[in-house]
């Protein structure tokens, strides 16, 4: 039984590696941020209060990411394995045994992720502490790993992984073997509904209005961050799924070419997965674009407006920490977006191999399959970025309107310029990523 389990893990290694990678990143970033933020010399140093608040906000942001990474990727991994679980149940494994198996597997992976993540964070912390001291203009801080951060991290992840493992095991138990067996064969269906579209547009409208109006007040602005993100997420998800359904049914009904038929049918088959992935990547991309844009923009602004040397020194310290936090968070957003796409693309490879073999049997050439994948990847990579540009442009608009006092024209145009550069860079990176993924994937999926 154990050797069977181990062999099973080995055969599914590509899937496990995606999840392991995601949870290791979650652990490593949480600990790294914790070590840096709770560095004993930092709280002793004479720093503005805002700096400490920023660090706290950063820590909360990192915790939310960790939550997302662990839960999202674990669910994804489990859903992909529905077939296998269904088979085990059919062969006579009891639901309780299945739940136990999932529970043990999850915790084993979690323990591995914690060990790897903490090791990684030790290395990353040393580098970051050095960098942060440079930014703050203070003598290099000694590298210290605060025990409080270690305890907080272990507590957080202990709870997170145990609860996640228990919920996942329960979740999988709730399906019948038949439901599990056909998870990948049965198509996901979503229907077009006017109320949904109205709700989706409404969510986005309220989010945008909140962003542009409420943020004038610093306290309210901070407090409304979470509802804005949630509304944005819901609105984006609803609109993506509804738009996909609308376009896919239209195109499919009068599909005049094999390419249109195959792409639309493949997307429609997994339409909810696609809507989910596109939403996540969109929001994460919007995060990167906004954070980077604001960061670079405000840097330019400080240089221009500081009047006295003391004021300049204090502003620089605040900006340095803001810079650190936003850079950290935007890197996380980027890594999360990239790994979401990676996991989405590479976990479908077994299913695709089978389907491509079928298509080759009836006469679709390799070139045709290359074209098919290019179309799908282009959608997967660029649709989110385009919507993210819209979202983040609103966010930048909010910043230029309210946060920059007196609306200094130079600062505003500086911020927009910085934003444009960030957008261009991000598009370039995504184009590259799309190309590389396409090359790698076609090579792997079309290999005999």
């Amino acid at each position: 039984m154990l050797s069977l389990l181990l062999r099973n893990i080995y055969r599914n290694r590509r899937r496990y590696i995606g999840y392991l990678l995601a949870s290791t990143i979650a652990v490593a970033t949480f600990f790294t941020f914790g070590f840096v933020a709770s560095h004993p010399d930092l709280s002793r140093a004479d720093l503005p209060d805002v700096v400490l608040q920023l660090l706290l906000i950063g820590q909360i942001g990192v915790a939310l990411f960790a939550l997302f990474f662990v839960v999202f990727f674990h669910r994804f991994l489990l859903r992909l394995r529905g077939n296998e679980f269904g088979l085990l149940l059919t062969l006579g494994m009891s639901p309780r045994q299945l739940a136990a198996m999932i529970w043990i597997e999850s915790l084993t992976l979690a323990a591995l992720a914690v060990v790897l993540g903490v090791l990684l964070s030790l290395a990353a912390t040393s580098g970051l502490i050095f960098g942060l001291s440079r930014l703050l203009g203070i003598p290099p801080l000694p590298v210290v790993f605060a025990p409080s951060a270690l305890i907080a991290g272990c507590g957080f992840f202990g709870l997170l992984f145990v609860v996640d493992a228990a919920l996942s095991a329960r979740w999988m138990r709730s399906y019948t073997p038949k439901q599990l067996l056909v998870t990948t064969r049965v198509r996901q269906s979503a229907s077009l509904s006017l109320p949904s579209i109205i709700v989706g547009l409404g969510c986005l409208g309220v989010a945008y209005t909140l962003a542009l109006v409420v943020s004038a007040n610093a306290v309210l602005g901070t407090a409304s961050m979470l509802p804005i993100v949630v509304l944005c997420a819901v609105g984006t998800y609803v609109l993506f799924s509804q738009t996909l359904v609308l376009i896919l049914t239209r195109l499919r009904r009068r599909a005049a070419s094999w390419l249109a038929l195959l792409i639309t049918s493949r997307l429609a088959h997994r339409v909810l997965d696609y809507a989910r992935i596109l939403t996540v990547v969109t929001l994460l991309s919007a995060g990167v674009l906004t954070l980077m844009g604001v960061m670079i923009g405000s840097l330019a602004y400080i240089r221009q407006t500081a009047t006295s040397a003391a004021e300049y020194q204090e502003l620089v310290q605040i900006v340095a920490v803001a810079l650190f936090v936003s850079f950290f968070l935007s890197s996380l957003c980027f890594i999360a977006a990239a790994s979401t796409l990676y996991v989405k693309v590479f976990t479908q490879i077994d299913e695709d191999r089978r389907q491509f073999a079928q298509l080759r049997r009836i006469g679709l050439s390799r070139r045709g399959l290359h074209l098919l994948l290019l179309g799908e990847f282009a959608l997967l990579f660029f649709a989110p970025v385009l919507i993210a540009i819209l979202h983040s442009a609103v966010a930048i608009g909010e910043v230029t309107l309210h946060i920059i006092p007196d609306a200094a024209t130079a600062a505003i145009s500086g911020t927009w310029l910085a934003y444009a550069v960030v957008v261009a860079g991000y598009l370039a990176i995504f184009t590259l990523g799309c190309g590389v993924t396409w090359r790698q994937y076609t090579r792997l999926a079309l290999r005999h």
Partner: protein
Amino acid sequence: MNDILQIKHLSKTYGGTGGAAATHALDDVSFAVRCGEFVSVMGPSGSGKTTLLNILAGLDTPTHGEILLDGQSYAGLDGEQLAAFRRSQLGFIFQDYNLLDTLTLGENVALPLLLDKRDPALRVQQTLALLGIETLADRFPYQASGGQQQRAAVARAIVHDPSLVLADEPTGNLDSASAKLLLQQFAVLNQQMRVTILMVTHDPQAASYADRVIFIKDGQLSTMLERGLQPSRAFFTSILDTLSTLEEG
């Protein structure tokens, strides 16, 4: 009548490099299929039937020998040309149906036409009706029974008027009633629509629907049986007789 398919001295060897023992899946096989003929290739499991069909389909290359379809040799066609050739000249039916899960039965049938840049509108409905599944066009494969899926696969194999339909144990996964229905439809397609069929099977009942049965064993042709004018039952009996002689020999 002229030969639509000519197979000349076909051999296929797997492995045999780096010390591994070589498998002679096909060993100097030669035969021809006439236009409009229904030929069945019989042999026990592992005798090389699937290998033969894969090579005929251009999905695999022979170690030796030559194939001519309608006078045209496969040799010298590159991957793209072979794919184009496959989708215009050949139709396939597989034991596992080979329907795409993401497409409805109707879309599955339309696919060969779309691949060949032809308008599917009318043809698809006609072909589905011919096989009695026109009401199932909008169902997905998992919503259809095995027999219905296999009939959709047959529709897909003939929708583009191929010169030759290749079938690899098409009744292998079907219950006896669905199998019988499918074989009767093969006979109708062959007799009324003049579709040329090469069917591989290890089931004597299935083989008895053909005009001619070719027996292979260990990758070699062993003997051949013509139906001639005998009725199905008599032909079935002679197939059984031949099989038992072959097993003894």
